[in-house]
Every structure is written in C-alpha cells, then in structure tokens.
C-alpha cells in the first residue's frame, strides 16, 4: 500500500515538474527583449529550450532535497545511521548516463541552432589594409535566402564613439540605419582597443578587434529604434559608448540614405562628459584616456 502511494506521489511530482518546466520554457520568450532579427527567433527558441531543461533539472534535484529536509528530520541525539547504502552501481551509472545524454542533447540543440545562424565571426579575417572592394565574397557556407544584394555597412569603433560608413553612398554617420527584410553585412573595425557590437534586440554580439576585420551578416525584421552598446570593456567612458540603431522600412531607408549628408553625428557623450568637471560625489581625479573629439564624421570621409 505504502509502496503504491509512494509511486503515485512520485508520478505526480514528476508530472508537476514536467508541466512547470514546459510552462516556464514557454514563458521564457517574454523574458527577452523583443526579437528584431530573423536570427533572434532562433536564439529565443534555444533559450526557451534551455530554460525548460534547466528548470527540470533544478526542480528534480531541489525537489528531492526539500522533500528530504521535510521528511527526514530526526531528534537531537539520534546519531544512528540513516541508510547504510554506500552506493548503487546501477543508480550511479544512470545518473552519469542521463546527464551525459542531456548535455549532449543541449549541445546538439545549440549546435543546430548555431548552424542556422550566419554567425561566422571569423569566417573572413583579413588584413585591415586590404581594401574592402577587393574582398572575395564570404567564403563560408552562408545560405542566401533572397537574391537581393547584401547591404554592406562598415562599423568603426574608437574610444568612445561609433561611426557607420555606407561605402556605396560614401557617407558616414553616427547613427545606424538598417533596411527591414534585407540582409545586412556589418564589417567591424576598431582603431584603438577591443570593442564589442551589441544590440540586445538583435541577440548577437561581436568583439571588434583592432587590425582584424570581422564581419557579421543578419536580417533585421522589426522596425523600430534600438540602442547599440559597446559590449567589451574599453576604458574610462565605456558606459557612454552607445549609438542609436534604426530598422527602417525599405522606403524610409532609401529616403534616409538620400537625405542624410553624413554630418548627422550625434553628440559624443564621452567627449562631452570629459570636457565637463566631474559631477559625481566622490572624485578620484585619476588619469583618463582622452576621448576622440566629435568631428569623427568628416575625419572618416576625408580618409576615403
């Protein structure tokens, strides 16, 4: 009788854990910022899967521990043995095998989702001196979903400003505009230290390493205004290295390309703060690297 009750309880417990895990896995989509690229959806699927599995493992282990804490308490001076088992070959094999299978499953899922992304950071490392025009097309196995040409934009990072160059239009700006539903390739370059390109709604991140040109291809799907933040610590004003990112409808995008004259540099936050007296309560007056001055846009143009 007791045995049966135990089994029933166990079954109910496992069922509850499965349901909760599944449910939280579904909830997980809403814990992320809105998904603004085609790639982001895959990442969210992966995240949902990871959450579901993670919650399942967590609840199984913690459930057992909490159950034991509730039911196994003994009196102060009872030092007799609980259970004499020193181990159980079968059980130990099982709990080595099951996690192995689980982690391989997770790894496989991650792998296949990774394959669906065009994340090919280092696919084309090249010498930065090589001109962009003479570059071969991406050597890697990127599948082109549309026959549309890829929109190529250069992203330039330096302490602590972002500059975006649209090579075919020969303009440089301080805000990034992207066409919706078109494949975009960003080509990253840094002038001083390592920076990182990160827009949370895009779900990817790429370090920008001086003297290594790296690129990344993706497809924005959702119109709106987003914030780009530097994601690799780059010194004193790291927190201020941001830029606005717009995903525009194709019409609005070409409209913008036409109307912009390359002088739409945003206020350079780092330079602005550096010029001021520190506003904070506690001032160390330690040395800070000088930020680049706001005139980046013209600087870049003249170089070309």
């Amino acid at each position, binding site marked *: 009788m007791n045995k049966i009750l135990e089994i029933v309880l166990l079954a109910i417990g496992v069922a509850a854990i499965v349901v909760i895990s599944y449910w939280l896995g579904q909830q997980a989509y809403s814990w992320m*910022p809105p998904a603004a690229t085609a790639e982001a959806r*895959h990442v969210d699927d*992966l*995240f949902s899967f*990871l959450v579901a599995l*993670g919650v399942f*493992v967590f609840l199984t*282990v*913690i459930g057992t521990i909490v159950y*034991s*804490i509730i039911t*196994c308490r*003994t009196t*102060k*001076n009872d*030092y*007799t*043995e*609980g*259970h004499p*088992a*020193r*181990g159980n070959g079968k059980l*130990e094999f099982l*709990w*080595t095998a099951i*996690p192995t299978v689980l*982690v*391989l499953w997770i790894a496989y899922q*991650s*792998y296949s989702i*990774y394959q669906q*992304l065009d994340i090919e*950071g*280092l*696919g084309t490392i090249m010498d930065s001196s090589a001109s962009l025009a003479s570059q071969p097309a991406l050597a890697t196995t990127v599948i082109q979903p549309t026959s549309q040409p890829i929109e190529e934009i250069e992203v330039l990072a330096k302490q602590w400003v972002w500059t975006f160059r649209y090579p075919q239009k020969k303009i440089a700006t301080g805000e990034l505009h992207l066409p919706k539903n078109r494949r975009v390739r960003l080509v990253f370059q840094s002038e001083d*230290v*390592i920076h990182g390109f990160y827009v*949370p709604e895009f*779900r990817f*991140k790429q*370090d920008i390493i*001086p003297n*290594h040109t*790296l690129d990344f291809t993706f497809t924005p799907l959702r119109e709106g205004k987003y914030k780009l933040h530097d*994601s*690799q*610590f780059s010194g*004193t004003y*790291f927190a201020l290295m941001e830029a606005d990112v717009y995903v525009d409808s194709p019409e609005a995008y070409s409209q913008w390309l036409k109307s912009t004259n390359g002088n739409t540099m945003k206020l350079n936050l780092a330079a602005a703060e550096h010029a001021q007296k*520190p*506003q*904070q*309560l*506690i*001032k*160390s007056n*330690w*040395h*800070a690297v000088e930020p680049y001055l706001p005139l980046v846009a013209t600087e870049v143009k003249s170089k070309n």
Partner: protein
Amino acid sequence: MTINPNITSVSNSEVRQELNWKRYFSFNTDHKVIGIQYLVTTFIFFLIGGVLSMIVRGELITPKSDLVDRTLYNGLFTLHGTVMIFLWIIPSQVGLANYLIPLMIGAKDMAFPKLNAIAFWIIPFGGIFLLSSFLLPSGTAQAGWWSYPPVSIQNPSGYPINGETIWLLSIILLGISSIMGGVNFVTTIVRMRAPGMTAFRMPIFVWTVLSAQLLQLFCLPVLTGAAIMLFFDLSFGTNFFKPALGGDPVLYQHLFWFYSHPAVYVMVLPAFGVFSEIIPAFTRNPLFGYRSVAVASLGITVVSIFVWVHHMFASGTPSWMRILFMFSTMLVGVPTGIKVFAWTATIWKSKLHLDTPMLFALGGVIMFVIGGITGIMLGAVAFDLHVNNTYFVVGHFHYIVYNTITMAIFAAIYFWFPKMTGRMCHEGWGKIHFWLTFIGANLTFFPMLPLGLQGMVRRVSSYDPQYAGYNILASLGAFLLGMATLPFIANIVASWLNGARAANNPWHATGLEWTTASPPPLENFAKIPTVTLAPYSYGQPQYSTVDTSDEEALRRHGN
C-alpha cells in the same frame, strides 16, 4: 575510517603547547597556525573586497553615474574582482586545506613547513601591495580582472609606476605563493598519509584539494607567463599583445583563460569537498557513491583544462573552435552532476540534523545548481552571444563564487571551528547569519539574471533607466548581504573568546581530525594513527551511539 581504539584518546594536556595568541603574528611553521593565519587574513580581504562591491552597488542603485567618477568605478570593480578571487576565494580555501589536510590524512604537518609559512606571508604583503595602488596619483588598475590588452596597457603617460604595474606584479607574486602551496599539498597528500590511508580511504576533501592543486600547478604558470609578457608590453615597450604593432591581443585572452577558467574549478573543488564532509555528518549516512565522487574530482580537473574558449565565444573565435568548446564545456556538467546527485542521495532517507554547518551546506548546494545550470546555458554558443558580458554572466558566477563557495567556507568554519579553537559556535547567531545570507544573496544576485537577459552590459557605472528596477533590488540585497556578515563576525569573536568548550568530536563525525584533541596538539597526533575503515562509516557503533562526554558538550551548545 576509524583508527586503532587505544590511541583515539590523545592525552592532550601533556602535548599541548602554550596557546599563545602571539604565534599567529609570527613566522610559525605549524600548519594549524598557518591555516588560521590564512583564514583570518583572507577574511579581512573578503571584507575589503566586499566594501568595494558595496560602493559598486551604491553607484548602481541609480541609473546615472553620480556616486564615484568613471575612473574610480573602473578601479573598484577591477580590484573587487581581483581581491575576491586572488585574496579571498582561492587562498581562504588554501587556509582551510592547510589546517585540515595533515589532520585528515594522519600526518604531523605539511611536507615543507617552512615553505608553507613563506607561501602564507606572501599573501598579506601581496594584498597590501595590490591595495596600495589606491594611493597612486594615477590610480589602480582599471581594466577589469581580465586585464585585457590593449585597454590594460594604455599606460597613463607620465606615470611609470601605475596601478596596472602593481596589479601585474601582485598577480605574479600571489601566483608564486600558490605554486609553493601546490607543491606542498601534492607532496603532502601523495607522500605523508598515515598507514592504511589508501587513496580510496581519503576523505573527499582531500581528493578535491589534490585535484585543485594539480590544476594550479598545471595552469597557473601560464597566467604567470602571460602576466610577464603583458608587463613587458606595459613597462618596456615590447608588443606581444599590441595590435597596432603586430602583436595579438586575442592570444593574451587564450593564455589568460587557459588559467582562469581552470581557476574557477580550483575555487569550487574544495567547496565540493566541504559539502562532501558536512552532508554525511549531518545526515548520518555514508557518502553515497564515494568512489565515483572521488573520481569525478579528477574528471572535473581533466575536462576543465579544455573548456577555456567558452569565455571567448565573441572574440572573433572561429566556428569550429566555438563548437568544440561548447561540447567540452557542457561535458563538465557530467562529473559535476555526479557529485550533486551523490549529495542528494546521501540526504535521501537520512537522519537529518539541521545545525548551522548543514544549513550553509544545503544552501550552498541548492544555489550551486542554479549557478551550474546558468553555466550550461552560457556554454550554448548562440545563447552566450546574447548574454556574454552582460549581468547574466555576473549573476551566473556570483551564484557560484558567493552563493556556493563563500557559503561553503562559512559552512566549513562553523563545522571545524570547535576543532580549531576548542570552543563551540553559538547556534542561534549562526542560524541568523544563515538566513540573512541566504535571503540577501538571492536578492542580490538573482535580479542580475533578468538584467542580463534584457541586455544590461557589465562594467558600466551608468545605464539605461529601463534597468533601474532590478538594480535597486540587487543593491538593497547587497546591503543586506553586507550586514549579514556582522552576526558572523560577532559570533566568531565571542565564541572564540568564551564559547562553550568543545568535545573532541562534537558532531560525531568520522575522519581522523576528530580523533585528536580540540584544538589538536602540536604535531597533531600523540601517535600516528592506523586507518582500517572506509571513510564515512557512519554505521559504526562509535559514531552512531553517543558517549557521555560528547552528550555533555552537545547539551552545552544547545543542540
């Protein structure tokens, strides 16, 4: 593991030397003195690192940068991370091991007592040296605890001696101390075990310390090498890592993480050992699957050498490397899982006692599972590229470094305090400490996970107001966590001065350390014991029946 009954009761009064507090301030070579020196010194560094983090949390309670200026903020988190890792987590567990290993394997001391003392004294000097950079006009190192070039070598012109120089020299210095420790521990464990103490009779703590120290010996020199080269770049103008001059900054990252990833297992393995000692003692069960837990320690050691690239998924790492290291990273979950399941099975159907050490151990295990699972999530490349360098990572590792390892150290101190001092800790205060810590820790570090998912990057002193809510929660939690330390300090100080006298084996635990006096005499055992039993033999009558002297002690500490 028990010992020949006629030598269990060491006549301690004759052997015990004069217990003079002054010896803790001297160049003493007794491993027990050194162990306590380590623990106290590193705990002071923990408080310092904690105060730094309090200022960090103070700054982050509002979105604007309004408490400390940018350079100072960068210095604060850099030194917070460095102090906590190199002066708290790693050396405090070295201290614990120093105290316990010779006792646990039935040796009179460590293999090289003098070397041991030298290794210890490097710690306070290295630490003070590191912290002294706060006084420099150019300030402390400000490039994070990774010290990635080229940011770290943007040498403030005109300051030949700067925070980064001091940072690098301290790291090299503390590394030398760790290598000395590693040599000492490995020699002690391999060569100084008492008769009958075979490998599979060693307590798990010994296994984990051995594994951790082997990792130190193998990987730490690579960090030293990297630090030397970075130092050359910084001070002599070479260009190993300077991209502008042909050097390779990513190479530094590889060298750094080749050590610093295994370092996280150096930190966590002894904590696993602590859990494996405490959980059987308070469940009255032998450790379930002892052998596989022991072997899993070595398994973790081996696998963890080959996973370091998971810190560099966004560093322009080629795809094949990302995939390869994703698989290896996830494999670490298997030997780690073996341990977690073994603890769980030990608790299952047990005779559970919830004394303070056990509370901390259980809390630590529970929060470790959260830390571990978030770690596995980070290992998934595509997901990591979203949360890399965000607060999700910060949340992940604080769940381990604070919520698991620091909890384990607290557990260990409560558990072995009677052995170390001959006095009992106050249970009530211990429980208050536990609950404040447990609640505070979750309040501080859980909100960091959603923050990271939402995209808040780390190492910023100002942030978008959309992140304010969780940050306020985390900051308030952190202040609570800071306060939670106070009952602990009060408890330790008061109990050390006039706590109830402890019996030799107040917890009725197995293990050689409990067979000698509390505190143990010089050279530990009147006669080197002979080991005849498997470890964690809680079914043996000498552990499962209570003798009267222990009863007395237990009554006094109000159990």
